[in-house]
């Protein structure tokens, strides 16, 4: 029994003896918490497609940064952040004024920008490897510098949500009430779009653009099934997202599967369990 216990502890501790695993775990947990909290509003406001589109739309920005900096990883965060904020506010404006339906407009922009990103990256000879890192993430190569950026910007996002919690909640539940209370509705909407944009930039290295929407939506949706309170939904989502990050990285380590995919798959399994649990309880 004792031996089994020791084996299990070793199983858990061994990956943590590598510094890249420690940094990766920390990054995955931080990103998970930020995505879960912001994702709560994404789920409640039905913005999943917007989040997915936004993540894809920043690829040309990252590609440009990648070409300009000659393949260096450090500056890419700033390129991602800049593109993401511009794209979020841009999509917000276009979708309001479009002659065609909002989701169609978003679809056209997102696919076009994504294609532009791929085209730019494909001008570099070794593009396949780098492209796959942008698309699917590479949390195990997170540097200490990147970790600090995640901590600072992720922290800013969480503080902003805390500061405007009642305004965001009122606006999400009943925009007409927000207007009759004379809350600055346009400003708050743009602030929320900006928060989603910063979250996307912060999460880039962990899950990549293609899997980003899963981090925004899946833990929050899991929590949505399990609680009737918004604050609890944020907390439960953060717990599931953190667990997904940790379990996902162990899976990645022992089964040699891509880290971003392992994290997202773990989050998806949590969702399916919550879904099944709820269905059984309703019977």
């Amino acid at each position, binding site marked *: 029994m004792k031996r089994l216990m020791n084996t299990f502890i070793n199983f858990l501790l061994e990956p943590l003896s590598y510094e890249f695993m420690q940094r990766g775990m920390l990054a995955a947990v931080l990103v998970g918490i930020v995505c879960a909290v912001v994702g709560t509003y994404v789920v409640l406001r039905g913005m999943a497609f917007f989040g997915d589109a936004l993540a894809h739309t920043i690829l040309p920005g990252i590609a440009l940064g990648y070409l300009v900096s000659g393949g260096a990883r450090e500056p890419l965060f700033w390129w991602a952040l800049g593109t993401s904020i511009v794209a979020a506010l841009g999509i917000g404006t276009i979708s309001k004024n479009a002659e065609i339906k909002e989701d169609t407009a978003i679809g056209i922009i997102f696919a076009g920008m994504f294609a532009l990103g791929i085209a730019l990256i494909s001008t570099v000879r070794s593009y396949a490897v780098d492209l796959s890192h942008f698309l699917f993430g590479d949390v195990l190569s997170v540097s200490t510098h990147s970790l600090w950026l995640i901590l600072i910007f992720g922290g800013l996002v969480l503080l902003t949500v805390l500061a405007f919690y009642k305004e965001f909640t009122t606006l999400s539940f009943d925009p007409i*009430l927000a207007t009759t209370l004379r809350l600055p509705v346009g400003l708050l909407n743009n602030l929320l779009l900006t928060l989603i944009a910063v979250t996307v930039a912060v999460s880039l290295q962990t899950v990549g653009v293609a899997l980003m929407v899963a981090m925004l939506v899946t833990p929050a949706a899991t929590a949505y099934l399990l609680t*009737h309170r918004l604050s609890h939904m944020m907390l439960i989502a953060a717990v599931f997202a953190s667990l997904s990050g940790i379990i996902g990285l162990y899976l990645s380590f022992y089964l040699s599967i891509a880290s971003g995919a392992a994290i997202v798959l773990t989050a998806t399994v949590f969702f399916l369990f919550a879904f099944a649990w709820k269905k059984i309880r309703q019977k």
Partner: protein
Amino acid sequence: MYTHTHHETNQPILDVSHLTVRYNGRVALEDVSFHLHEGERVAVVGPNGAGKSTLFKVVAGVLQPNSGQVNIYGSRPLGHVCIGYIPQRNQVDWAFPVSVADVVMMGRSAKLGPFNWPHKKDWDFVNHALETVELSNLSSRQISQLSGGQQQRMFIARALAQEAELMLMDEPLSGLDTPSQEGILNLLDRLKKENVTVMVATHDLEQAASHFDRILLLNHRLVAFGNPDEVLHTENLISAYGGRMRIEPAGTMVVDDCCDEEADEHVH
């Protein structure tokens, strides 16, 4: 603090003049003028698509008119936080993860100002509002677990917590059973004692006549506005409902105006 305008109390609580609103080229409201005094209860009556919701949204400052203007105590609605808009129940996301008390507390958002969390005073407002609408015992329920009448009362409590002086209620009675409708109407009587001015869109001419001080008959244009006996004349009703109404030999008028859950409305 978020902005709000002070009241010129020598001005009427609501003054609507020459209001015209168009949606995609179609006229929703045309040259509508009237004014309300404090504490009045007004039923806004008219066929579906007559512009009742549009009128409420313009009065609340949610929608801008093409021409004409709305004044609340002598100034435009956009500066005022004293207008409570109570939405139609089918426009609400009932699965939203909030409790009854959470929703009522939302009414305090403006008075609280940015970066503030509810103080004891705000909870007092919320608890008092919940007592007034008799929902204190359900305050921690998720909102989808309420009955239709309770949901409507929750929104009235939210407007009370907002310290609304003018409440606009869009079809608060439709789809409710008779006891629930009675509950809401009794609540409106209590609001009158607190000097709250109330505008209610309704389909039920009988209730409009028996429970409201004045009736505003609307069909894009203002057809008539006054005491129930003055307004509910055959001539006015024909001009408001037109082909949707027929007069039976016994002198009974039948308004055939289908809405969500109710079929026909009968007027004697």
